[in-house]
């Protein structure tokens, strides 16, 4: 294996291959930064260009593009509260509040360094853990996927900045929206209101833009001013090196979130959109100051970005070893492999070892390239956005939002859906039901329903099929994780309440959670 790794490294150090990785990373970042153009869509657009290439450079280009696209999604999440890809949902939760505080440059640097660390750890996992982990992932049945989705839903307990009741209502609203369209099992057409375009369900990207971006655009237009500072006085004193040191001074969060990302990436169908939320929740749960999350906490950005880039390597594990794509973009890369006559499996590593390891090393080279490219491009973008007068910023965001919502299916109905969800989210936020739990429900709804119905169907031979959700060993571990994740924020609140009472807390500090 080490011989092949060495060969892969040498192949990547040629000028032509480095240029290819640079082009792939840069174009991926550009596509990822545009709301509406997901990594999956970008890779799909790129595939025809790789037809004329040999398999190795073609796959290297796709891999670098994928890595760059996942990272690029963080730019707009941080700067305008519009996650460029679903993998950056959690990045927006703290990235945008950092921008509002005048610390967007710090957030961009944090996202860059974290994406690099996550990308590298994902690749290391791919190199050393591929075969055993891929075998383990095969033990996950529908019941386990149901519990994975429920584990994701428990994040609501920590996402709810106000009351848990309203957070749960937001999550259920998201789950309900996820049931619109054709059922994932059985094929029922549900809640389409006689609109054929709704048969495909609520499209995720227009929904993300609506739920996160439109309320901000409404506020900007109505106030005619922005909350964010152009540059805050303290921020000017922070050099790039200091910011990088600050981020690297959080090794536990970086490594833990990257491992979470790689592990979630291995589960077929989960991917970066789930990994960033799970890592964010874990970072908040284990933080000494969880109350700062959602208000501009850099650890939130670090967790989300390291996890989503780690899914790139993690998702490749089942793709290359079993032929089961870990994430949607992996499915396209799998298609390209098959197109070139390469069959995934243990045999692939033996017969085409040189190609496989060149591809794997290219992912690592791409992660390294993201640092200088991202620091220049990302910080340039940040300065541009911050310097833009608000009367041009708001319509520019609206233009991007409209294109982003429209581009996925070339459908005006998607733009209507985006606006309707955005206005509804703005109004719901007034009564304390925020957009983040709704997004969580929307993302996890399909996984949860598929797991629930398939789990019952495959156990139909058992007297009470639903009991299989509580008897399988991996399910039991996942249930324990769900319970811990759900009650942990409440325990933390109680502890904080006790220590505040003990220390003679101020009334405002105690008011925080009445749920």
């Amino acid at each position: 294996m080490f011989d092949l790794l060495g060969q892969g490294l040498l192949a990547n150090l040629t000028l032509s291959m480095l240029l290819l990785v640079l082009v792939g990373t840069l174009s991926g970042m550009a596509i990822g930064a545009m709301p509406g153009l997901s990594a999956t869509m970008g890779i799909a657009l790129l595939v025809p260009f790789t037809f004329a290439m040999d398999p190795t450079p073609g796959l290297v280009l796709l891999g670098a593009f994928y890595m760059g696209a996942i990272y690029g999604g963080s730019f707009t999440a941080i700067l305008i509260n519009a996650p460029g890809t679903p993998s950056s949902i959690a990045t927006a939760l703290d990235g945008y509040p950092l921008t509002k505080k005048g610390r967007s440059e710090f957030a961009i640097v944090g996202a860059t360094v974290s994406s690099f660390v996550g990308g590298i750890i994902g690749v290391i996992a791919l190199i050393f853990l591929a075969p055993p982990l891929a075998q383990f992932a095969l033990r996950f049945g529908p019941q386990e996927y149901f519990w994975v989705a429920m584990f994701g839903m428990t994040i609501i307990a920590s996402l709810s900045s106000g009351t848990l009741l309203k957070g749960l209502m937001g999550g259920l609203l998201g789950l309900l929206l996820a049931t619109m369209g054709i059922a994932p099992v059985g094929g029922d057409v549900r809640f389409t209101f006689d609109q054929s375009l709704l048969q495909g369900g609520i499209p995720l990207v227009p929904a993300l833009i609506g739920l996160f971006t439109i309320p901000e655009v409404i506020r900007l237009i109505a106030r005619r001013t922005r909350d964010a500072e152009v540059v805050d006085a303290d921020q000017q004193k922070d050099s790039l090196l200091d910011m990088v040191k600050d981020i690297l001074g959080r090794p536990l969060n970086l490594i833990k979130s990257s491992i979470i990302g790689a592990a979630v990436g291995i589960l077929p169908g989960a991917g970066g959109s789930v990994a960033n939320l799970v890592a964010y929740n874990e970072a908040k749960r284990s933080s000494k100051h969880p109350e700062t999350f959602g208000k501009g906490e850099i650890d939130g950005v670090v967790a989300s970005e390291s996890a989503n880039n780690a899914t790139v390597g993690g998702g490749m594990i089942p793709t290359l070893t079993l032929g089961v794509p870990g994430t949607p973009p992996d499915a396209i890369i799998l298609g390209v492999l098959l197109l070139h006559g390469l069959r995934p499996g243990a045999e692939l590593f033996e017969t085409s070892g040189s190609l496989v390891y060149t591809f794997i090393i290219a992912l690592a080279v791409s992660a390294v390239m993201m640092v200088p490219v991202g620091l220049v491009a990302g910080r340039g973008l940040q300065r541009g956005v911050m310097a833009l007068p608000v009367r041009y910023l708001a319509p520019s965001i609206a233009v991007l939002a409209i294109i982003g919502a429209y581009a996925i299916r070339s459908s005006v109905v998607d733009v209507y859906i985006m606006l309707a969800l955005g206005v509804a989210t703005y109004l719901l936020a007034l009564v304390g039901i925020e957009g983040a739990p709704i997004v969580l429900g929307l993302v996890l709804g399909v996984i949860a329903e598929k797991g629930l119905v398939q789990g019952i169907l495959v156990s139909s031979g058992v007297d009470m099929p639903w009991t299989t959700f509580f008897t399988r060993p991996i399910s039991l571990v996942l249930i324990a994780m769900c319970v811990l994740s759900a009650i942990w924020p409440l325990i933390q609140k109680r502890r904080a309440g006790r220590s505040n009472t003990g220390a003679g807390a101020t009334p405002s500090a105690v008011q925080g959670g009445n749920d």
Partner: protein
Amino acid sequence: MTDMGNIVGGFATLLFCLIFWVQRDYTSEYGGLFPDAVLIALAVLSLLLVARGVLWRHESGWDWTGRLTFGGLARALALLVAWVVSLPVLGYLIGGIIFFALMAVLMRTTRPTWKNVALDLAVAVAVVGVFYLAFTRLLFVTLPELTL
């Protein structure tokens, strides 16, 4: 004293549940298992929120800190709705330039001069045009065209 925010929020989500409930039309055995469970849970929580609004006196259901003036909110909603609704007719390019410029002019905090309007129009043409060219020529994404 009741809490109007929670009452309004609770009734709004109850109405949402009702709209979905009357749309139920399942054809397979398990087609309604998940959505019905979600609908019932959401309805129960909505009722709890209403009850909270009626019974709990000292809870702030409205987020007063983030509220906008009625005029500001009306301006924002009118501009966005008009822009989106006119999209199939005016297309991306023409509609984009018109509403971008209109938004920029209306967001000025001082009375705009003709020079200001010309500047805002030029910025609108540049921004909307650059995005149009990038998406249609570079990324081959089709955008709505003028149909008048």
